[in-house]
């Protein structure tokens, strides 16, 4: 571990080489670095180490990961910013409460499961069951934005928050998979593509964006474009559709009393 004094305000950066390091050791080092006052932790040669950033409760900390972090990246995280220069595996942002994850690559399945707050930005494609059961609570609005395409079950059981899918550089016929928003009963999705109702859960409504939607979309999208140096105007000029839950209680006629 080496410690470098970076700038005038004495913000400290700690750099860790994770080559062949077991995750327990690595995560201990990260926690130790943060406890010692580091604001930026840079981890190099990451490959498959799980749980990086898991359970960390500090807002003023940035963890930069160079490589491919393992599963459950930032699980239960409550505040920090994580930047991944590479792809993320499955389960990133699992039950995350606050903070921000910026992934300069693709992300795997079950991204942002039960996420209650914070932001999860992925430049590339995302896997299956992304944003599954993400929920808003009190003032918290979780936001997931993926620049590429998504697998099946996007926004499954979605109960709150905002999911935005852009389909940039996409050459497949649809940027969403099947079973889109099945069980959706809260929150909203903005999809930068036409959405065939055939692909949606029965609980999902498709609509045009109103002015409120446009404001929300633009606000988050600008931040996303800043993070990845993308051209906001190019992206926003395409048509978006809004997916919303038709009912907060979709299963009224299911049970016999």
């Amino acid at each position, binding site marked *: 571990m080496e410690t470098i004094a970076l700038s005038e305000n004495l913000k400290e950066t700690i750099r860790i080489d994770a080559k062949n390091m077991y995750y327990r050791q690595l995560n201990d080092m990260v926690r130790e670095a943060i406890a010692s006052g580091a604001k930026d932790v840079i981890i190099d040669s990451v490959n*498959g180490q*799980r749980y990086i950033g898991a359970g960390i409760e500090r807002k003023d900390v940035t963890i930069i990961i160079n490589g*491919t972090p*393992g599963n459950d990246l930032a699980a239960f995280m409550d505040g920090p910013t994580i930047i991944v220069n590479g*792809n993320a595996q499955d389960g990133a942002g699992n039950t995350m409460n606050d903070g921000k994850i910026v992934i300069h690559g693709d992300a795997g399945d079950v991204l942002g499961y039960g996420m209650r707050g914070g932001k999860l930005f992925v430049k590339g494609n995302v896997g*299956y069951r992304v944003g599954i059961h993400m929920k808003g609570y009190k003032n918290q609005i979780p936001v997931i934005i993926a620049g590429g395409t998504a*697998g*099946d079950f996007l926004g499954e059981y979605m109960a709150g928050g905002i999911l935005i899918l852009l389909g940039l550089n996409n050459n497949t016929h649809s940027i969403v*998979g099947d079973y889109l928003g099945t069980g959706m009963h809260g929150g909203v999705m903005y999809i930068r593509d036409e959405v065939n109702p055939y692909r949606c859960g029965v609980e999902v409504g498709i609509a045009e964006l109103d002015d409120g939607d446009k404001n929300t979309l633009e606000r988050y999208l600008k931040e996303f474009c800043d993070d990845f140096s993308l051209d906001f105007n190019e992206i926003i000029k395409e048509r978006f559709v809004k997916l919303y839950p038709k009912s907060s209680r979709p299963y009224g006629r299911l049970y016999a009393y």
Partner: protein
Amino acid sequence: MRSQELLWRTKDPEILRQLGKDISGCGLSGIINIRGQRISGEAIRCSIACQHDRGNGLGGGFAAYGIYPRYRDYYALHIMYDSHDAKNSTEDYLDHHLSVELGERIPTRPVPNINKPPLLWRYFVKGRKEEEGDFEIADDEYMVKIVMGINATIPGAFVFSSGKNMGVFKGVGFPEELAEFFMIDEYQGYLWLAHNRFPTNTPGWWGGAHPFNLLDWSIIHNGEISSYGINKRYLEMFGYKLTLMTDTEVVAYLLDLLVRRHKLNLNVASTVLSPPFWKDIEKSDDKEKEAFTALRMVYGSAMLNGPFAFIFGFTRGMVGMNDRIKLRPFVVATKGDNFYMASEEAAIREICPEPDKVWSPRAGHSVIVELDRSVTV
């Protein structure tokens, strides 16, 4: 514990019936060079070691293709024994039914955590003695009978590999320890599979580790096949004897049935195992709809249901797939002539840091990689 120890000794079908089904979680890794260039086992060892936490030290193994070029025309039988008696009975059986070119101990190194290995032997054999009758039966069919015969009748003996110019090495331990034990780094193969196992109810039996093999089919598998009960009964109808109580055995035999016996190509066989949903079939054109519908109607009992990803290897290729709603992870990458498949991207990057392409195949879609047609192995 009880069940697997029993399994090792008993060949009594009634006791086998009583045994619980094996349940386990896992990590997978596979590599193939489509030009048939041989790669050291060291690469696959690193890749599977990276997925250490997907297993629990109770099972690991490797399948390697192209490792016995000198004996490429012989079936290589890898057999484990729990006693010299078992070995003697088996060798008598082999001598009686086959011509054995060479029988030798499988070379191993001492490794601290690998305890009480069984006797591990390999035999290079020809399909059958010339003077024996029954010429109707093809060599492969005959070998299947031999393997099933040993596994079903000789207590304490278990054939765990029976293909040509390939071999399975597996046991109880973490895969990296087993790699050391079996000296995997000293083999050169054009196709490698590795497995890291997390059994939940059946520790302690070497035969229970993956890969599972029959002839040149080797399977590594992550997940549980919830349709095991009917898959097993379906296979029994075609004469397969399922003795190992594992999901993976079912997959191996289904492939044997669909590809070797029913002559379905790999693509169609994968469709049978992980078929499209009716709602998607409804949307295909008439001809495809008819074909998919027929496959589902006829092969409904062969469909694999539940969470799974598996990779299977065979002489000319490697196939990876997962279940219809993607309940287990599966990643594929390419770099030049090499194709990689694994449970986690990190397992691929461990041995191929800058792949040309990395992707997660869609649920239920198989990825089939075959050797270039010009390659002979």
